[in-house]
């Protein structure tokens, strides 16, 4: 129904788009869920940048009595190596906050490029690439990721980033492709062709800016999944290794001791959950505002 207002307005020059952008940001932050998500994310980013917030050293062994349950001095307890788990949780956000966004960024860039190519050229390019995409999507993403990481056999972080980037790109490319298909129907694309523009120019300079909001939405949506996937891979032993205080690495190290040392697993697990949920809260908000 809102187009009625636009219609009534079409006779006059419209207001600045900057105002619209400001409005979008305001809408975004007005939603309480987005605000909470943003605060949680900001907290973890802060911890990652300033590891000094941890009250004790997260790495050195035997600073405290080993395997002590939570109490005032150590609210999350201590682990079997005599380290303060609270300090380790605060210090543990760093690697996941580097790996997950880097992987998502890679996936978004790849996926957007693929989506532009398949949506713009259609025909053989589209058929070929789309079958490949289908093949990747036929496996659960996490299984595909584990397969690749295992096949490579390295535990380097770069392998994790590349793997997640590759595995997530097809999903993103699908969404982008659909939007590109709709864009190529519009006459501005035809006008560009008729002035002799190259395909690459049309894809990246004419069409990409118009699908960019969707790219942003995709990035935020995939970030939540990526965090989860990174944690999973780390948990099964790829990526960051102990004694790093990384949350998933901690869980990996202690989950077999969950009874009776539940605190060694619970607190890092809660930290991962808080990060995934925060990312999803923000992405929901972003999607709502962009797709309004």
């Amino acid at each position, binding site marked *: 129904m809102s187009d009625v*207002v636009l*219609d009534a307005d079409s006779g006059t*020059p419209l207001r600045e788009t900057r105002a619209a952008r400001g409005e979008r940001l305001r809408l975004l932050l007005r939603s309480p869920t987005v605000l909470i998500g943003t605060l949680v994310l900001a907290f973890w980013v802060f911890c990652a940048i300033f590891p000094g917030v941890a009250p004790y050293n997260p790495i050195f062994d035997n600073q405290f009595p080993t395997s002590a349950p939570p109490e005032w001095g150590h609210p999350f307890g201590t682990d079997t190596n005599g380290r303060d788990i609270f300090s380790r949780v605060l210090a543990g956000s760093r690697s996941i906050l580097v790996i997950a966004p880097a992987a998502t960024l890679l996936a978004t860039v790849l996926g957007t490029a693929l989506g532009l190519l398949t949506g713009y050229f259609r025909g053989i390019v589209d058929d070929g690439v789309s079958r490949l995409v289908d093949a990747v999507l036929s496996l659960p993403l996490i299984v595909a990721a584990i397969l690749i990481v295992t096949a490579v056999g390295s535990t380097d972080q770069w392998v994790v980033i590349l793997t997640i980037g590759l595995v997530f790109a097809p999903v993103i490319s699908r969404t982008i492709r659909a939007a590109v298909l709709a864009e190529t129907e*519009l*006459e501005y694309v035809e006008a*560009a062709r008729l002035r*002799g523009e190259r395909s690459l120019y049309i894809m990246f300079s*004419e069409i990409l*800016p118009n699908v*960019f909001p969707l790219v942003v939405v995709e990035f935020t949506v995939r970030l939540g999944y990526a965090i989860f996937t990174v944690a999973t891979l780390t948990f099964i032993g790829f990526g960051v290794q102990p004694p790093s205080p990384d949350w998933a690495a901690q869980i990996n190290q202690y989950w077999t001791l969950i009874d009776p040392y539940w605190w060694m697993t619970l607190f890092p697990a809660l930290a991962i959950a808080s990060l995934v949920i925060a990312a999803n809260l923000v992405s929901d908000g972003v999607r709502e505002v962009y797709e309004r």
Partner: protein
Amino acid sequence: MSADAPALAVSDLELVYRVRGVDRRVLRGVTFEIERGRSYGLVGESGCGKSTAALGIVRFLPRNGRISGGAISVAGRDVLALGSRELREYHARTVSMVYQNPGSALNPSLKVGTQIAEAFTVLGASRDEASDRSREALVRVQIADPGSVLGRYPHQLSGGMQQRVVIAMALAKDPALLILDEPTTGLDATVEAEVLDLVTQLQAELDTAVLFISHNLGVISKMCGRVGVLYAGRLVEEGPVDEVLRDPRHPYTVGLLRCIPRGGVRKDHGRLDTIPGFLPSLGADIAGCVYADRCALADERCRVDEPPLETVGARHASRCWHHDRARDLPRAEAADLELPKVDRVSTPLAELHGLTKVFQQRGQDVPALVDVSAAIWPGETLGLVGESGSGKTTLARTLLGIVAPTAGTAHLDGRELPVRYQKRSREELRALQIVFQNPDSALNRRHSVRRILLRSLRKLAGVGGADAEARMQDLAGRVRLTERTLTQKPVQLSGGLKQRVAIARAFAGEPKLVVCDEPTSALDVSVQAAILNLLVELQAEKRVAYLFISHDLGVVRYISDRIAVLYLGRLQELGPADVVFDGPHHPYTEALLSAVPTIDGGGRDRIKLEGDVPSAASPPSGCVFHTRCPRKVGAICEEQEPPLVEVEPEHHMRCHIPIEELRRLQAIA
């Protein structure tokens, strides 16, 4: 319900939209009445509040809209006092609305029969009864084969049929008031004429009052007894249709009437009048007359004091201090131009030889163009007319190289053009450009006007850097874009400004031929006039040729030197504009012309075209027009396709009837 109450009485209606927390006045004290069984037209350009008024009357306002004052009563009932249950009742029984786009008014996933039956079951009919009455309803809107239509989905029907179905549903309840909001705007002239005839006839039968909303004064003049002219939410003039159109007493009405190309006016007769300036922004505070900013008669008093609605004739009122001088409104005439002399002895600029395009659709051959040959000379305009599906756009796209022809060639300056645009040289691309119908989708909404123009200059004219900047300023000046516009993005511009940008883009490389594909049909008439003037100016200046596609015959006549008439992909008639319009003309052209409702009224009786355009996949035998031709002579029309022959100098026609016979027949009509 009292028996003598008018069907609709709107008094002092105030309506606001809340945008970014501020109430903006959309209707400013609108008052009018429709008597039972009468029809009332509401005209004005987009943004004047016509549709908003209708939405207010049926109380279907968007969430941010609110009626802030005044009263509406339908058949004596106060509409504003209705509670939610009564409102449902009101929608179900008393008032009906028909929208512009029948395609979106019907549910695409339900069969037509189910949807019509719904209109009856709401009123309490049983299922069997509803299905019987649906059938009757379709018969009432002159659908010949109701049984088969009921079983079909909306997308399987043509636009005209869809609109009939919508009208059948609207009339299911015998409404006291039927609101038609631009019901024929998306339809071809021939279909429009049929739908309008149908509405007139049903209205007489059912004694329903009609509120007819349209931007088209011709349609209003044909359909309505009284008319109200809306401007910026104010009713500025009101009265009997013929009187308002003959003797308009408000400068806005005068302006609207003057900017429509009609009565055979042509570009070499003079420029079209335009209405300068813009509609005030939504809900602006206006102290004096709403129209003062754009009115050539406005003086100090107009800007300070709002004129009252003054009676200027029998039931004719105008809201203008100078209503007695309205007709002397100074004309906004532009300088006279010297139009290029067209020399048709020299080599044509562009030539089409036997152009044929056959599309493949589900393994079926669908010929969209069949053996079309034509030529365009430098500096002239070739108008291309025909109903939708006649192949106009395919012809243009083939010439531009977007669509590859199945057979035939296109030449430019005597040299054969590569079939696809990818294979064409920069010279050839530069020479052939296009202005699209919809400037919203034709301009990249993320690019600034400056970027759009600079890029075109770079690619088409091959200039960059400081040169390009200077050329862009020149280009922008020529299409009258201001400095401020250059930094803006298309969404920030009005439709007319956007179309100017699109024209500037096409002219960046000094083209020789510009295809104009319905360039003004998305625009208001005053803006249309300005754009047509601009195109003519550019033609005078640059000797550019146009291939001008339009369904608006008045516009085509104004701008064209010669006209080509297409039907089912075949050229039916080709000749100088005056000859094609004044006749004798091809029976199809004759029917097209007579379908257009004119403001001047009177004139010829309409020639009815039976049925829809046949499917291009299985065109009729012989002359493809014989199935609908009102002048069909006999078996020969069904058996032999007439050749395209030169019946008079420069006048080509494809008809079995000899020209002298046509002349005689058409003189009688």
